[in-house]
């Protein structure tokens, strides 16, 4: 049944008995044209676009646990496209365009809310770096503008711009179209839409091995629910990518770190936008329910524990309390972690691998939620045609050999 106000009204009268399952709880078939490993937002979006745009519907999305329970279900949902490198700009802006109509595309309210993303500058280096972003973005046709500290405070009234702050706010870059979306709805919306197009979403199905034929090409996966043959395999396993790729004998330029987030108790609206401060490491927005959603840092070491140290969360809250002093008496309600797969240049890897038939989409690190629709879209095209989608083309695995890195992190590096 379509989701609409009319149907909601009709169902209200009928006691909501008419709503069916949002996706089929499919049993695995023996073989598929494409097997996607990982039912996070990126994997589900890939399946959806394969079916919707490339007519490939004989697809299974295999999920070791429950769909959307990876980083998709545990991120701080910041969406923006004001990246520095031209390759990144193209990728994230592609995603941004898709966000703008995603609820309609999926017939699922993903609550994309362009509330504006402010990135704060605390020193001369930050100012220079943010301005460089703004100039680059303007050239690319991506909105991003410079605000003085006073303008930033007008945009976000609880922001502390006192001059005597240890890290004073000297200005900010604002992307108006940036914002947040409801993380769970993104996974569920793609799952529902893909399932409707015939995609099998198979949960509690962990891939344990990748089988290759005599020609070296992929043939099948072994799973906790048996062997499943596949002509092509797309690995979209985020934090677990190294583990899955090792099944095909490949080492990856990845390290997996626990990244934490936390929410406050819900309060009436106080935070109208998203604020990010890279220099003192704090990110905050407020959800529709009223919690302040706060991004914390990563633990220093590789871990698959979906949990992190107390010192990481306290460090973040130190910064939050300085930047937003009215939050000091609010309370932390829940603190959790996800496992993010980080590449050396902090840019994703999308495309082919040395193993024929094996494709990978990973390395989104701490910032891939915003790319979900775009990532799925270009990866689907790459899988369908066997050649990288033009937007995905620079994000090859090979760049680590040639040295053609897309270094978003270095561009923000502080020295001198």
């Amino acid at each position, binding site marked *: 049944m379509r989701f609409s106000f009319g149907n909601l009204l009709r169902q*209200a009268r009928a006691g909501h008995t008419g709503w069916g399952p949002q996706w089929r709880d499919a049993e695995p078939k023996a073989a598929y044209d494409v097997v996607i490993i990982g039912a996070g937002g990126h994997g589900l979006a890939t399946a959806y676009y394969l079916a919707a745009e490339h007519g490939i519907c004989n697809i299974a999305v295999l999920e070791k646990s429950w769909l959307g329970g990876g980083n998709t279900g545990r991120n701080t949902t910041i969406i923006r496209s004001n990246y520095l490198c031209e390759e990144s700009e193209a990728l994230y802006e592609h995603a941004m365009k898709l966000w703008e109509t995603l609820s309609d595309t999926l017939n699922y309210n993903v609550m994309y809310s362009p509330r504006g993303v402010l990135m704060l500058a605390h020193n001369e280096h930050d100012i220079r770096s943010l301005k460089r972003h703004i100039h680059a973005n303007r050239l690319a046709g991506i909105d991003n503008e410079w605000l003085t500290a006073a303008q930033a405070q007008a945009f976000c009234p609880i922001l502390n711009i006192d001059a005597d702050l240890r890290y004073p706010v000297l200005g900010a870059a604002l992307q108006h179209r940036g914002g947040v979306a409801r993380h769970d709805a993104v996974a569920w919306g793609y799952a529902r839409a893909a399932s409707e197009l015939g995609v099998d979403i198979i949960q509690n199905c962990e891939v344990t091995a990748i089988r290759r034929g005599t020609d070296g090409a992929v043939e099948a996966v072994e799973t906790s629910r048996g062997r499943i043959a596949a002509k092509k395999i797309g690995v979209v396993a985020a934090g677990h990518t190294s583990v899955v790729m090792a099944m095909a004998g490949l080492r990856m330029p990845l390290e997996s770190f626990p990244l934490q987030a936390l929410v406050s108790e819900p309060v009436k609206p106080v935070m109208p936008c998203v604020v990010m401060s890279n220099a003192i490491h704090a990110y905050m927005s407020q959800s529709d329910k009223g919690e302040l959603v706060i991004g914390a840092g990563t633990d220093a070491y590789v871990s698959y524990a979906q949990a992190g140290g107390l010192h990481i969360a306290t460090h973040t809250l130190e910064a939050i309390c300085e930047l937003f002093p009215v939050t000091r008496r609010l309370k932390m309600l829940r603190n959790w972690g996800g496992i993010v797969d980080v590449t050396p240049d902090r840019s994703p890897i999308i495309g082919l691998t040395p193993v024929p038939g094996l494709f990978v989409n990973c390395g989104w690190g701490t910032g891939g939620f915003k790319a979900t629709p775009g990532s799925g879209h270009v990866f689907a095209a790459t899988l369908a045609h066997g050649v990288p989608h033009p937007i995905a083309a620079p994000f090859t695995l090979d760049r680590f050999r040639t040295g*053609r890195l897309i270094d978003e992190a270095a561009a923000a590096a*502080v020295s001198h």
Partner: protein
Amino acid sequence: MSRPTQRFRTAAGGRIARARTISFQFDGRRYTGHPGDTLASALLANGVHFVGRSFKYHRPRGIMTAGSEEPNALVTILQGRDRQTPNVRATDIELCEGLAAISQNRWPSLAFDAGALSGVLAPLFPAGFYYKTFMGPRFIGSNWLWPKLFEPLIRRAAGLGRAPASRDPDHYVNRYAHCDVLVVGAGPAGLAAALVAAEAGATVIVSDERTEFGGNLLSAFDAGHDGDLSAGVNAHRWREQSLAALAANARVTLLPHTTVFGAYLQNFYGLAERLASHHGSPPPGLPRERLWQVRAQEVVLATGAIERPLVFSGNDRPGVMLAGAVRSYLNRYGVMAGSRAVVVTDCDTSYAAACDLKRSGVDVPLIADLRSDVGGAAIDAAKQAGITVEAGVNVLGTTGRHRITSVLMELGPAGARERRAVPCDLVLMSGGWTPSVHLYSQARGKPSWSEGAQAFLPSDPVPHVHSAGGCAGTTDLEQALRSGAEAGAAAARALGLTVSAEIMTVADPDPVLGSRAGAPVMAPPSADAFIDFQNDVTTRDIQLATQEGFRSIEHIKRYTTTGMATDQGKTSNHNTIALAAGMLGRDVAVVGHTSYRAPFTPVTFGTLATTARGSLFEPLRRTPIDAWARAERATFEDVGQWQRARTFPLRSENQQQSIQRECLTVRCAAGVFDASTLGKIEVVGPDAATFLDRMYLSPLAKLAVGRCRYALQLNEAGFVIDDGIVARLAPDRFHVTTTTGGAQRVLTLMEDYLQTEFTDLTCWLTSITEHWGVIAVQGPRARDILEPLIAGLDISAATFPHMSVGTGEIAGVPMRLFRVSFTGELGFEINVPSNYARDIWELVEQSAERHGGTVYGTDAMHLLRAEKGYILVGHDTDGTVTPEDLGFGTGAKKVDFVGKRALARPDMLKSDRLHLVGLLAEDPQHVLEEGAQLTQAASPANGARADGHVTSAYMSPALGRSIALGLVAGGRARHGERLFVPMPSGPIAVRISTPLFLDAKGARLHG
């Protein structure tokens, strides 16, 4: 307004100090209570049950529990204008003089709440309704109405309390602590564990979130000394004795008011201690809360169990309470929560509460047991007390607007079932107990389902963690004490201690507890049978979720928001799981539970941020010369943790004028500059030269003693990460400088190579950044300024040429003198021991003034070096720049060095890489903006590729025109070419040039 008296206070008993009366306010009305009360118990004593509105439907809600599991009774506490705290549990907050609380989530008032309309429309708002609507209408586009109309509406309706408007005047502190045994929870199990462990000689910390230690014992009926002592010591007396014994033991630290909120790796625990909230007017200077970060060898978790509500239609009305809570209010606080109480239960423990109420004179017309088959000691005791017990009861609903007025039920033998409405003003409900396995689970234990206990219990062992008492599944006092003592003993033994103490037998004040609840009896899906009270999740919502294909318990949680409120489902999670299991036709064990996460109860941000505020937020590093600069009213800039003098404006000058004057003065006479923040490393040892040669691009192996060299440091990927001067003081001794921000990073990197890669080399690295204060003197008069001050070193041009280093004395102070220049002028950098630097600075500055010189700051320094095309790492480079890109040849050095191999990668050799160039705007008065893009077209199309960007841009006083440095694709081959900087105000034409704008031959430098 008349002042209501404490009508529901018992005549005697309880642990309140009746002699003193405290006055407080709720929603503007004045009430009274006593020390020892919580806000909740005091409100109940005054007959106030209705204290809040629920999150979604704005339903009237009352006080349901007597502890930190409370889902409903959330209030905002006001203490003066600045101290406003939202979402405080009335059951947790201790009453103190002047306390003022207001209800939340209602408008205009608690009784008449416009938001209650959403309750009327509830059929429209089932779980996840927002995913299904608010998208259209299609012709406007899906992304318009949502953010502009619907989202703001939803946001306004949601949220609970309000964030304070002003800054928090309180402060918070931190404390690291270490102990042999951390005991969490000071109920009977925790106390027993602490006694045994302490007796054995362990250092023990005992923490409990409540004011008083004793846990459930405090809620039990105290029969006094005349109670039955045959079975052992009176439990209350035991509690007192135990506390006295612990308090007298110097190895024991008692932490009441302290919640253990998180379990982290290797027995590291986070504790939040409330120091001031229970003071009406806290002593000045008393921190509000303290964070304890405790590392324990062994941990005893004795966190008890939480009572479960029952799920029936209308189970959320004010006046419906947990049975144990009613008992707690009666026995601990001396409050009768009502005058006519009906008990609805499916477990034995609530019978004791009924008996206690009856004994206190409360009318208890009926115990309605949902189980069809009841019997045993508890039931007999109730019957003996004259209470009617009905088994096999089916609760159909309740009535009442702001307070319960009756319970509707179906009862009687099969075939002769009758419906009855039982009038009452209080309902005691109990669905059994859920062991508090939160911390065990956070400590990475995996609770598993126990069919016998009908609960998830700690099962697989977590190293050095012991669960005891209610949280481990014990149900009576004897078991609690025994398991506590055993846990304490196990902890002590694990520490290698000998255990001798024995726990005495204690008479159970609750001899009727014993048997456990059966599998919960669940009402059919209904729109007002609440599971999660705060988030308004009903049985119908859970049903809808399963119907819509949400089968994982994690999905059900997220779709319905059950367990996601401020209580984190302490009273609801079990019922959710049981209900979902029934609906999915799966075992509870298979359905499993959602993950437990820190914090156990919400923790104030301020507590977690502790002292990191204002000047304690992060160290602010100042140079030895800083005070002088401040006195001269310099302006400053942050560079890493340092603050550096940026300009020294004269009275009449603005920033720009100051920079221009400072620069010109340096070029015409001289300038004095505080370079103390530069990183410095002393490299000493027989292989020091070889080591440095491997660490830097520049060849250093053969650097002569007394000479310096500029050196670029690369990472192993071939990119420039730092630069500095390497000076050879002796064959085996070097003084190396780094960038200000890079000091620590470079030292760490060099240590890493020295310790783990170049282990064939013998030398040592010592940070000397702060030992030396550095005063740069730059300009044609530099030598004249210095010469009179210096002894023991000839600095004439002939003996001390550019890039020399030597030692001597300045004003009698030992110094290391470098002849180096970052301005293109004749220059020296004087290094003097930091504690002398301020006075030496003044001498040098005075001498400079005599020669027409000036002091200058970082802005002038940046400009001066740009005129010479000298790069600033991190300013003109960004971690993607190779030495070749900057114009440094890399082929000359044949031996290996860090980063060498990477420079030969295909992409590093491309001719279209970004090169450092000079940029001259065609309008010489126009200063470009740093970070601006460079394009070939004057008005590039959207999405056009840039040819590069501006990295540094200034108005050069020496050249009388603007200059800039930039990185341009293939730029070295494009000198003279025209590019554009597309700005919003229009394109600016520029010419690519050499980055060396001044004194190309270096005549000034070598002067």
